[in-house]
């Protein structure tokens, strides 16, 4: 039973990072209907920026975490400004293909830095002794990660419910024409959506880097699992993203805990999310909490 709870705990830890990562994706989709394929690369970039600031610039990790979020905020905003702003009005398919191009570009840039091939880990800033509770191990980093994740999720839900900017972003996602007519600048909202996505990506990347270390392949694989998460939760639902993130974390932990090693299976944790994705697409295309579209074509 301890084993089970251990898996639950680590599932929740991983899942909450998924949730944080998925929020950024959902934000972009909600406001502009663009599936941002480059989101995983934004997360990786966030992780590496945090690492660079901490290790090479000797900035305390708390500060560098915040700094990298700010940097990614402006970086993602400029990505939107440079590449995507000129495609407003083009068919959405070309915008999505541009994000595929971006994915490739950021991949290439990271491969060109020494980070592309090295295994790095953050200097530990919390006690490395894990917390033991009833035989369940949790490290301080994981606790910090979960706490920061839920704090950020709380901040974002407040932001979307109460702040004017957040409400205008929701308005744009609801109806672009109508929001234009009441004086919301739609391109600005798109820019903001990307910027916020960059910010959450940096946060997710920073936390992830602290928990699992920095290896580009791992970060890459992590970034792609964001897609099953958002499909499971429903592409345009923030609570869905959070719930689906945690569900996906649990699925993965249970898979690697119970399936691997039995029946000659291995690495099922990296396979199951995609099977879930296909099944969800076939049987419940709007995910758990996504908006149902009435029209059937």
């Amino acid at each position, binding site marked *: 039973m301890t084993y089970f709870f251990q898996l639950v705990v680590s599932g929740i830890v991983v899942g909450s990072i998924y949730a944080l990562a998925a929020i950024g994706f959902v934000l972009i989709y909600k406001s502009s*209907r663009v*599936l941002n*394929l480059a989101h995983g690369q934004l997360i990786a970039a966030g992780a590496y920026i945090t690492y660079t600031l901490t290790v090479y610039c000797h900035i305390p990790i708390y500060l560098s975490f915040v700094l990298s979020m700010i940097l990614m905020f402006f970086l993602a905003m400029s990505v939107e400004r440079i*590449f995507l702003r*000129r*495609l407003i009005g*083009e068919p*959405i*398919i*070309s915008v*999505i*293909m*541009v994000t*595929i*191009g*971006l*994915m*490739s*570009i*950021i*991949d*290439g*840039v*990271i*491969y*060109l830095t*020494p980070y*592309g*091939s090295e295994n790095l880990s953050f200097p530990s800033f919390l006690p490395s002794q894990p917390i033991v509770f009833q035989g369940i191990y949790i490290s301080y980093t994981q606790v910090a990660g979960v706490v920061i994740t839920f704090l950020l999720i709380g901040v974002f839900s407040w932001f979307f419910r109460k702040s004017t900017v957040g409400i205008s972003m929701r308005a744009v996602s609801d109806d672009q024409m109508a929001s234009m007519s009441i004086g919301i600048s739609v391109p600005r909202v798109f820019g903001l959506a990307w910027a916020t996505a960059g910010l959450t990506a940096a946060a997710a990347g920073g936390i992830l880097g602290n928990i699992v270390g920095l290896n580009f392949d791992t970060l890459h694989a992590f970034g*792609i699992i964001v*897609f*099953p998460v958002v*499909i499971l939760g429903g*592409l345009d639902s923030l609570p869905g993203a959070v719930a689906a993130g945690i569900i996906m974390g649990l699925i993965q932990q249970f898979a690697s805990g119970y399936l691997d090693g039995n029946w000659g*299976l*291995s*690495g099922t944790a*990296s*396979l199951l*999310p*995609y*099977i879930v*994705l*296909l099944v969800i*697409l*076939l049987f419940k*295309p709007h995910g758990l909490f996504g908006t149902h*579209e009435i*029209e059937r*074509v």
Partner: protein
Amino acid sequence: MMSANRWMATGNYFTTYRQEQRIFATHTDRLIFALFLVVLFSWPYFIELSTKHMLVVDNILIAVIAVYGLNLVTGFAGQISVGHAAFMGVGAYTVAAVAGVIGDQHVLITHAWPLMILLSGFTGAAMGLIVGLPALRLRHLYLLMATLSFQLIFQWVIGSMELFNQGQFMYVGRVHWFSGEVGRSQHYMFWYYALLVTVVVSGLGVRNILRTRYGRSLVAVRDNDRAADAMGMHPGLTKVFAFGLAGFFAGIAGALQAYLNRGAGFETFTLHESIQYLAMTIVGGLGQVTGCLFGPAAIRILDLQVESLAQWAGGILPSSLDLATGLRPLSFGLVIVLFLIFEPRGIANWWRIIRSYVKLWPFRY
């Protein structure tokens, strides 16, 4: 009446749909096409290429076949596929797995290779149909996610199953032709001709599919699925059909690649490769059959340039940097983005401009 002169048409004088749907509008087009074919088939007799460059030419032709399929899905049916390399992998691993089970020198592999290639096409098509299935329930571009997960599931299956040698290289034997076994010295030349025939046949095949009601319904669904639905087409089934066709061409391309490389390896069917095929399609021109020829050539040549640049720079910079692995995705990504922003109709559009210029010369219009 149509224009009396079918050699020198100065414009479109179509009066029936039949005329408009012709593959070759004028006799001149047909003549140029025939001359082009003659050149393609005969140049190896006049120019001797090194093995390395012959391999590049062969790879371009394989990519052309794959891009036919991807262009049907992305250009004509308007769905993005980021799993095209995996569909090719299905084809390649069909051949490789059969070779692994019955032995790579079995008659079925070495003598009945056209049958094996067709079989791979059908397994690819079957996979395409399965991946396309969610289209029955979905609108928009969610299918992108289905292809992405197919790509990753494919990688997992290849990497972990004994049947596929767990992603290690699997050998496929040399093929036989009427003159006996195709030896090492003729290998690339033989496959150049085999590929060329496949490219021409499937190119004409794609052109013909696009003239049929199924092909035209692809375009109709892309442009407006509600209107297509109202006109009695089934948008979901049309998209599934498009994915099946794409899988078919990818399967054939993959099988040919397995024969050309004398085996199948895991690393030629990754997500990066899928993106490379997408880059080829975009650069060539979405929704243009001629674009399927330009795109692969342009990207493969770019690839060669990047490689030599990386080699040149590798001599100057510290060797710890692996430039090629970084420059490749970087250049493909840049090409995708720049073409989509500045020339969304691809190289095929330049070709169209040149053609219309030549056609009307010496007049401006």
